[in-house]
């Protein structure tokens, strides 16, 4: 018979299953960051002058900024000159004309990750943009989407093909001066996805981007921009993985969402970057700025995130509720296992009248993981009738992990109604024994309890991905209690 500490110990150990590396010829620039780096990236992408100028302004601003150290996370200094800011699979000639011409090694990589891209095997109801290090290697179902006027593809391509749209909205939600990592991203962003849903169109399929970091010593700085015109609606999902390495890699992305009158954007993330090992060696630093603007009346933006990977997660998907009667939602499951640290939450900024927001955050801490919820609910002085409901729950597995909650509330209108609920619970040895005594294996018992804990969030994910998220969570906790 094993003791409590023992069983919990075994439970917390796990293997990362997406840690392989694809050996492929790349086009990589030397490490280091300067105006030349910015110019190089911009030239590589054949960008117009205005965008280069914008990048340079960001870079010059960044030089004057300090890295933030207020999050509840610990890590050594990051040497920004030691990072390679651009790496992409080498293109033959002019590059592939279609996905069928893409290097088979790349297609194989995505297949291994469960994202087949080529015609015969691709997922039917989902359009996928596949981003490999600094470049998008292709997007599925583009033509079908175009029939409805939906634009979906890499942002580099959008800059070339739809410069007016990109120029109008890029930086309109997250300005280049926003914060240290967002500003760095504005200077050196390489690729990401762009989606535009025209007026009144309900996007006929799920849109999704799969981000893969492959090359060593690089950072990934992707930029995603989604615009939903009046009455349009779209559901978008992003997934991400990286090889196992002993070094830390920086991933500093920016996502901007714009919803006009009555538009509806649902943005789901299943984040599974390499988390590092149990001793805290390696893993991705996931320092991300995500923000949505409910610009129009009756618009709605909903964030759902399942964060199981990364050594450190620092992100606060937020909604600016500017349009009257607009709605913001944030549903989150964040897991900190091994030596992972997560400082994540949301900001709901109520500016318009009768705006509503809901925040459901579930934090799971296991191993030596440290999980913090940090959230801000702000009600401006003109936001009459604003309402917020926040619930944050923490689940602890074992006795070496931690859960922290930092809720901030700022209200300047007396008609606002805010509710905040918080709970902390622990998967107890007695719960596991109770399940065992009914013939249920420990691993199944833990999964059952964890899934029960997360189900309010999982039900917000698109159906196909809810199953994936459940599986991912159980794999991430595999071997923790045995």
């Amino acid at each position: 018979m094993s003791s409590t500490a023992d069983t919990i110990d075994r439970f917390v150990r796990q293997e990362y299953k997406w840690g392989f590396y694809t050996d492929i010829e790349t086009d990589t620039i030397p490490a280091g960051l300067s105006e030349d780096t910015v110019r190089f990236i911009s030239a590589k992408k054949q960008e117009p002058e205005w965008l280069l100028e914008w990048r340079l302004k960001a870079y010059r601003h960044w030089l004057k900024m300090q890295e933030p150290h207020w999050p509840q996370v610990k890590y050594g200094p990051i040497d920004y000159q030691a990072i390679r800011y651009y790496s992409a699979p080498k293109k033959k000639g002019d590059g592939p004309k279609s996905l069928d011409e893409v290097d088979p090694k790349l297609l194989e990589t995505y297949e291994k990750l469960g994202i087949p891209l080529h015609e015969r095997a691709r997922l039917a109801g989902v359009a996928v943009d596949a981003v490999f290090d600094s470049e998008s290697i292709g997007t599925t179902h583009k033509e079908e989407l175009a029939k409805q006027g939906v634009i979906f593809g890499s942002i580099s391509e959008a800059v070339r093909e739809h410069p007016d749209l990109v120029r109008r909205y890029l930086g309109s939600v997250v300005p280049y001066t926003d914060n240290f990592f967002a500003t760095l991203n504005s200077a050196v962003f390489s690729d990401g996805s762009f989606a535009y849903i025209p007026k009144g169109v309900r996007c006929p399929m799920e849109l999704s981007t799969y981000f893969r970091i492959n090359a060593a010593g690089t950072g990934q700085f992707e930029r995603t921009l989604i615009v939903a015109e009046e009455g349009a609606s779209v559901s978008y999902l992003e997934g991400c993985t990286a090889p196992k390495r002993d070094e830390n890699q920086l991933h500093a992305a920016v996502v901007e969402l714009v919803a006009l009158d009555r538009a509806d954007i649902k943005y789901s993330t299943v984040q599974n970057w390499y988390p590092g090992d149990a001793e805290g060696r390696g893993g991705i630093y996931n320092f991300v700025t995500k923000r949505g603007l409910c610009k129009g009346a009756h618009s709605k933006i909903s964030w759902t995130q399942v964060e199981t990977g990364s050594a450190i997660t620092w992100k606060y998907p937020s909604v600016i509720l500017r349009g009257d009667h607009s709605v913001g939602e944030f549903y989150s499951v964040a897991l900190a296992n091994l030596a992972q640290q997560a400082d994540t939450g949301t900001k709901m900024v109520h500016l318009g009248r009768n705006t509503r927001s809901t925040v459901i955050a579930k934090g799971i801490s296991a191993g030596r993981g440290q999980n913090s919820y940090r959230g801000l609910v702000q009600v401006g002085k003109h936001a009459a009738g604003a309402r917020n409901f926040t619930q944050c729950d923490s689940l602890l597995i074992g006795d070496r992990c931690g859960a922290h909650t930092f809720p901030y509330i700022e209200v300047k209108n007396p008609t606002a109604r805010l509710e905040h609920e918080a709970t902390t619970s622990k998967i107890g040895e007695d719960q596991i024994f109770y399940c065992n005594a009914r013939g249920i294996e420990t691993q199944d018992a833990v999964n059952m309890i964890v899934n029960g804990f997360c189900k309010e969030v999982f039900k917000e994910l698109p159906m196909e991905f809810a199953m994936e998220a459940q599986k991912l969570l159980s794999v991430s906790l595999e071997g923790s209690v045995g």
Partner: protein
Amino acid sequence: MLEIKNLHAGVEGRQILKGIHLSIQPGEVHAVMGPNGSGKSTLAQLLAGRAGYTITAGEVLYEGQDLLDMDPEERARAGVFLAFQYPVEIPGVNTTYFLRTAVNAMRKHRGQAPLDAVKFLSLMREKIKLLELDESLLKRSVNEGFSGGEKKRAEILQMALLEPRLAVLDETDSGLDIDALKVVARGVNRLKTPQTAQLVITHYQRLLDHIIPDYVHVLHDGCIVKSGGKELALELEERGYDWIVKSPLQTA
């Protein structure tokens, strides 16, 4: 079916069981009675496989197998069931889902196909009537917010669903009013067959008015100090435990 031989066990260096001998055959109902702190619950938990106890001597054979060598879930699948004195709450986990997972774990072990949601529901409807439980409980989280009586009845519902060969009832009567006690006892009695056995652990005699034991054992300070037929329980009710505890048998 169950053979406990000279079982010595303790927790954190403190000796609790000091040489238990007990033999249970199929079809029999045994009652273990004793004052608080005599080791009754330790015996029940140990049979179900709870971690944290150190076994210093003796053995337990269940159908010829070394029970102490089996994991708790293996014991459950082999037909050993413990009705908990304090059923555990599992927030967020739906009761029906929990019960179906348990039943299917047992079925898998027996090489039977899993029951789908529809088949399981009709099985459960049939069993739930036996315990006079409200069906709305099944939609709630496992034991969460259940009254004391509901928890105990839900334990017997689980027993009815899992059909154990050896059921250990740990103070199933505690916290029950007389009506609930009768319902629970009726449920337990219906589950009695010539192939199954029951080990009823209780502090009070009143449960044994409704679950009639074939044998009664008195546990005191980690040893069975007296065994007898069902009339022993009545005698205990009348005279208390002191006369046995103080008799010379204690050291025998």
